[in-house]
């Protein structure tokens, strides 16, 4: 039987990603001087779990790193080694390396082997550091009382010795007492030998004379047989499994019940304490796991589609029964309105499946802020609020980049150096707040810093240099919007304290593409807030329906500024095939939709039809249509599932009558308007 192991990889990658994120979160929250044992255990467990999976799926490089990580963590959680910031830094670096290796296996991304090597070296150094300080130095502990131990004991990779202690025939009560006492030194197990004698296996950092000393309370050390060896590594030739002989298997449970030989019984042992706390720490995680199921996104999307369909059917029913006599059909109408409510609730519930907490995004920032502030020599207190606020999975993945940019900008350009802050009477540590909250059908995500604020004069100067239409009397809000102008801030001159807007046009474009908006509030010397407002889900869109000839198209409302009927005098031909229209003292290119889609329109004269002013990527244009039909929320459907991409169209939706309406790709339409000509851009 051959089984393709690669089919399990996806689950492993998902699992490992979650574990690594959790590990990082815990590491960042760790109080180095007094680490919480539960946290240490949870971090250890994450490394351990990844190692297990990696080994099974033969990702040897991941196994190696996690093994070193695990061994080191194990000693720290057992209290054998004190935690230092160097440990935390190294663990974080190891986490990054593991992420990178995972990406390599998952998506074929390149893996920086130097980084892997350096992390491994650091992990190794850290673990060797403690071996030198190990309490038991084998050579210094000759044990004359134990003749069998002729060779010097060898510590295993974790600095632990594996002793095998064969007892002479002694009463069970003595066996129990010894097990308890020896259990205090480390972890102990016992087995019953063929001649009914008992042998212990003790894993401990202590030396042999300690064992002898303890045993001498109960029996004559000369009767003991103590041997030592480190745990053998699993050799390739080994079968890797074993089945215990029946007789022993039967005898063992009895012995185990009689002898409290398990470490769990020795309450005073530090290792045991750590272990028990680990159980408590992970209990809640387990609770979460068993009460949730992992489902493919496509299944959820199918559910959303079906519910969308149901909502449309519901709308059709509502439309038809509206014509009925309310007295005659009172009961039918009541039932229908009940059904309508149920449908809405169902839709909401189904949509919520795709929702993920913002924490998914927020959790990556403490690390970034910490590293960045460290590099810049700044002090930043990072606060997140509303991490539990939920957002559609599709959007949450797309918000990461813009948000990363904004947070980076705040640390880099917003928050001042400690000296400067002190000079202006502020606390040395700047404050950076990342918050999320629901507002109506939107989620508002804000990045706030108490830094220097935007510099109005500087931005205006820069805008003038770039030939942007600005005046000194412009209101602040309009001045701040200038930093979103394409190319505005790419120049090096603004990357100092005041400028900050590196790549803000990209941020704005990404947010707009998600159907959202960006606003800035800033006050010189006090700070800046960048506020992003996004729809809760991509699956539903606020649309404006417009009609050209017989066709109805949907315009995403986010791009629409206004619609109006232009006066004939405001429409000008600028070339053989281009028209512009003057709207509020601004000439905008005119895009006749009928021309682009080769439709027979009602009107070709802009003064008879309606123009819709659209804005995307900082460019405005006027779209000529026959008429406006109305505004409505539409469920967005993918056109490409069964067909190909159609130029100028971003998707489709189903109307109340069951017909299909296409959603216009406004960004693409506007891009085409810049090169307006007979040239068939859409072909």
């Amino acid at each position, binding site marked *: 039987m051959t089984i393709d192991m690669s089919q399990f990889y996806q689950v492993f990658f998902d699992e490992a990603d979650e574990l690594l994120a959790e590990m990082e979160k815990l590491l960042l929250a760790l109080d180095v001087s007094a680490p919480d044992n539960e946290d240490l255990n949870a971090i250890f467990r994450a490394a351990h779990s990844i190692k297990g999976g990696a080994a099974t799926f033969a990702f040897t490089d991941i196994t190696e790193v996690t093994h070193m990580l695990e061994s080191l963590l194990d000693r720290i959680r057992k209290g054998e080694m004190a935690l230092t910031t160097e440990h935390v830094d190294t663990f974080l670096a190891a986490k990054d390396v593991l992420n990178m290796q995972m990406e390599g296996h998952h998506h074929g991304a390149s893996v920086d082997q130097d980084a892997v090597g350096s992390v491994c070296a650091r992990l190794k150094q850290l673990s060797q550091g403690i071996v030198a300080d190990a309490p038991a130095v084998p050579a210094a502990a000759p044990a004359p009382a134990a003749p069998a131990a002729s060779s010097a004991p060898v510590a295993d990779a974790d600095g632990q010795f594996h002793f095998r202690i064969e007892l002479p025939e002694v009463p069970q009560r003595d066996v129990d007492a010894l097990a308890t006492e020896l259990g205090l030194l480390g972890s102990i197990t016992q087995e019953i030998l063929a001649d009914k004698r008992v042998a212990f296996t003790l894993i401990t950092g202590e030396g042999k004379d300690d064992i002898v000393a303890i045993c001498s309370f109960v029996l004559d050390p000369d009767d003991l047989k103590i041997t030592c060896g480190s745990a053998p590594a699993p050799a390739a030739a080994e079968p890797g499994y074993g089945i215990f002989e029946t007789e022993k298997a039967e005898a063992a449970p009895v012995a185990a019940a009689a002898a409290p030989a398990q470490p769990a019984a020795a309450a005073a042992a530090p290792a045991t304490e750590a272990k028990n706390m680990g159980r408590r720490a992970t209990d809640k995680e387990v609770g979460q796991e068993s009460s949730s199921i992992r489902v493919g996104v496509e299944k959820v999307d199918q559910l959303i*589609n*079906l519910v*969308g*369909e149901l909502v*449309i059917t519901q709308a059709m029913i509502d439309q038809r029964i509206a014509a009925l006599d309310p007295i005659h059909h009172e009961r039918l109408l009541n039932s229908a309105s009940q059904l309508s409510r149920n449908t809405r609730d169902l839709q909401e519930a189904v949509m919520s499946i795709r929702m993920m907490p913002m924490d998914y995004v927020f959790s990556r920032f403490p690390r970034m802020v910490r590293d960045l502030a460290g590099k810049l020599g700044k002090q930043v207190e990072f606060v997140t609020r509303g991490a539990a606020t939920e957002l559609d999975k599709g959007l949450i993945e797309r918000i990461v980049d813009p948000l990363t940019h904004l947070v980076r900008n705040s640390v880099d350009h917003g928050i001042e150096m400690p000296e400067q802050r002190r000079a202006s009477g502020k606390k040395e540590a700047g404050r950076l707040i990342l918050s999320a909250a629901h507002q109506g059908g939107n989620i508002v995500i804000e990045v706030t810093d108490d830094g220097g604020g935007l510099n109005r004069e500087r931005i205006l100067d820069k805008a003038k240099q770039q030939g942007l239409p600005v005046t000194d009397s412009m209101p602040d809000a309009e001045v701040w919007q200038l930093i979103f102008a394409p190319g505005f801030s790419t120049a090096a001159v603004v990357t100092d304290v005041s400028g900050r807007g590196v790549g803000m046009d990209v941020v704005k474009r990404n947010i707009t593409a998600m159907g959202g908006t960006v606003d800035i509030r800033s006050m010189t010397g006090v700070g800046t807030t960048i506020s992003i407002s996004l729809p809760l889900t991509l699956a539903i869109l606020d649309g404006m329906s417009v009609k050209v000839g017989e*066709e109805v198209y949907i315009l995403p409302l986010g791009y629409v500024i206004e619609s109006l009927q232009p006066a004939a005098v405001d429409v000008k031909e600028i070339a053989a095939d281009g028209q512009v229209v003057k709207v509020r003292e601004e000439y905008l290119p005119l895009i006749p939709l009928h021309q*682009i*889609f*080769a*439709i027979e329109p009602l009107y070709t004269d802009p003064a008879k039809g309606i123009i819709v002013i659209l804005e995307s990527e900082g460019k405005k244009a006027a779209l000529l249509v026959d008429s406006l039909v109305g505004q409505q929320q539409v469920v967005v*459907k*993918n*056109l*490409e*599932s*069964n*067909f*190909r*991409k*159609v*130029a*100028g*169209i971003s998707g*489709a939706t*189903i109307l109340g009558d*069951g*017909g*299909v*309406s*296409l959603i216009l790709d406004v960004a693409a339409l506007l891009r085409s308007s810049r090169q307006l000509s007979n040239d*068939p851009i*859409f*072909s």
Partner: protein
Amino acid sequence: MTNTTHMNHGSKDAGDGAGDEYLAFTLGREEYGIDILRVQEIRGYEPVTRIANAPDFIKGVVNLRGTIIPVVDMRIKFRLGQPTYDEFTVVIVLNIAGRVVGMVVDSVSDVMTLSPDQVRPAPEVGTVFDTEFLIGLGALGERMLILVDIDRLMSSSDMGLIEKFAA
């Protein structure tokens, strides 16, 4: 990976020997057959939403229980007279490798089972389809069925239904 109809054909013969089932339909004066396993359902023609700048035989898209599917009219594609759309116009809904597409034909006749010995090689000429899209000729008594490799046809660049060929 490329599990074409040819291969399915062969493997099923090896299985029960009962032959393959084909959906028979007419286009112009000829009768055609396609693998019944590719047919999801047969529907009447509903008004479509036009796709701008698409070839004329791509009628547009319709809503099939919440999914948007393209509809192609084979009568236009193969220039078989003036197409009419009325209550008798039939759309064969195909499912080809997970993609759903509606295909308008003149009429659908029935489902026929053809054993391998009833299938002869395709003629070089005489059908509207290119030979590369044909499996063979099915003979059943007086009737002659032109067997079409619908997978290959629908994913061909000629049809322009799939992205990579559309560019």
